[in-house]
């Protein structure tokens, strides 16, 4: 069930994911 808590969980997780993905991409492009 996509309840109201899920909105916040997905938002928080996607922010963490964006930070992690960005760091990986920055390191890869710096090589």
């Amino acid at each position, binding site marked *: 069930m996509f*309840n*109201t*808590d899920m*909105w*916040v969980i*997905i*938002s*928080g997780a*996607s*922010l963490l994911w*964006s*930070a992690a*993905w*960005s*760091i990986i*991409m*920055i390191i890869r*492009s710096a090589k």
Partner: protein
Amino acid sequence: MFTFAPLWIGYAVLLVLIAKYSRSRDALLPGKVGVVVQALAYVATYISAVALVGFGGLCYIFGMQMLLIAAGNVWLGTWFVYRYLAWPTRLWQRKLNSKTPAEFLSKAFETPKLQVFLGLISTVLLIIYGSAVFKGAAVMVSGVLPVSTNTALAFLVAVVGISVVWGGLRGVLYTEAFQGLVMIVGVGALLLSLLREVGGPITGLHALAALPPTEAANNGFLALSSGPAGLNIIFLTIVTSVGIWAQPQMIQRHFALKSTQETRKAAPLAMLALSVVVGGAYFASALSRLILGPGITNPDIVLPTLVHKLLPVFGQQLFALAIVSASLSTASALLHIASGSLGRDVFKKHLTGWSWRIVVIFCTACSGIFALKTSSLIALICATSWTILACSILVPYLALLIQGPRAGSKAALMSSVGGLAGTLAWYLLAYKPTSMGISGISAPGIIGAIHPILPGVAASFIAFALFAKKGTFSMPALSASAPEEEMP
């Protein structure tokens, strides 16, 4: 407090020097700009003090559901923009040899009237919007230094005006990049000290989850609210994450891109910076309820109170610098695009030397004067300008990137006029928060809570479809039609 005056004077001098020594030959074009500078400038232009202090205060009231806005800003407002919009925009701009977003759209659709129309509304709306940004920064400075708000205002207006006159677009991008760094440091310091105070992120989240629901956070502080409060969060996400696509000052940031490779490098840098600044500020502000208690009613004092409680005096000054940086980076972008729109789009001038200085001085002076005035009309324009511009530009801009200028000049002009008319009509007659104070009427029930960005864009699209040339929406026409060539 005077002991910190050299810090602020040094900051202002540094801004002016950065602008002066990084200028390019053309005041409206960026010239060569490094990818880190581009990414930081994008973030600094995107994030104003309203997004930090104002929305930070809302996080105290609404809780972690405000992270939806931060996630929207990062993915829709940055990743999507760099993935799908930035490079096609740059290709069209280069092909058409245009210097402002209005010129770029009007040349593409071959309708000079669109340039004047968009130039005029951009100038008026952005000058007034800039006045609110200046006012917020002046209040911040007068709070940390023993000077009056008006003195601070005059000082800030002068610093930004000189930076824009001397620096042009390239100078503005470099000052913004510097300000973006200051924002990262300031917000980072606040986030770290807050997490230490509440015992770490997990402990903090557990404690926040245990708090009883309130009227605004009616499903608790870790869930999206039901009813109008939750709807408000979703609309704020759309306005700040999709509305950004069509802001002239943001479109202009893409003009500095040199290749698709550069676009791919800029995106993660901007996303990381935005995640730290907006995600960090909202996360910290939502947790601030654990430290400040439930008693605060004015959201604007949440972050200043929190900073006062958590950071040492130097840290407070650093955070104030971060907030002022957020304001001034937005203000310089607004003044630059307003000046360019007035000189280039409305008066069709080449804008070099004194013609550039005169339009910037005029726009800066107007913005400063509006900041001195307190008027409900100015406040209304400040709150609505972002949406009005988005509704006037979004449909023709996206149509150009998706299918080229096939729809024709009438469709572009009428969709822009239709977007403006539709959004204004909704603000005046249907949207409860504004229409009740102006016309005394509003749409019934939940319809009155629908943000004007939706009906505005819908009106713009309907006008576009009605006036589009035959065959515009046929399948072959929908193939991507951005100029294919790479930069030399």
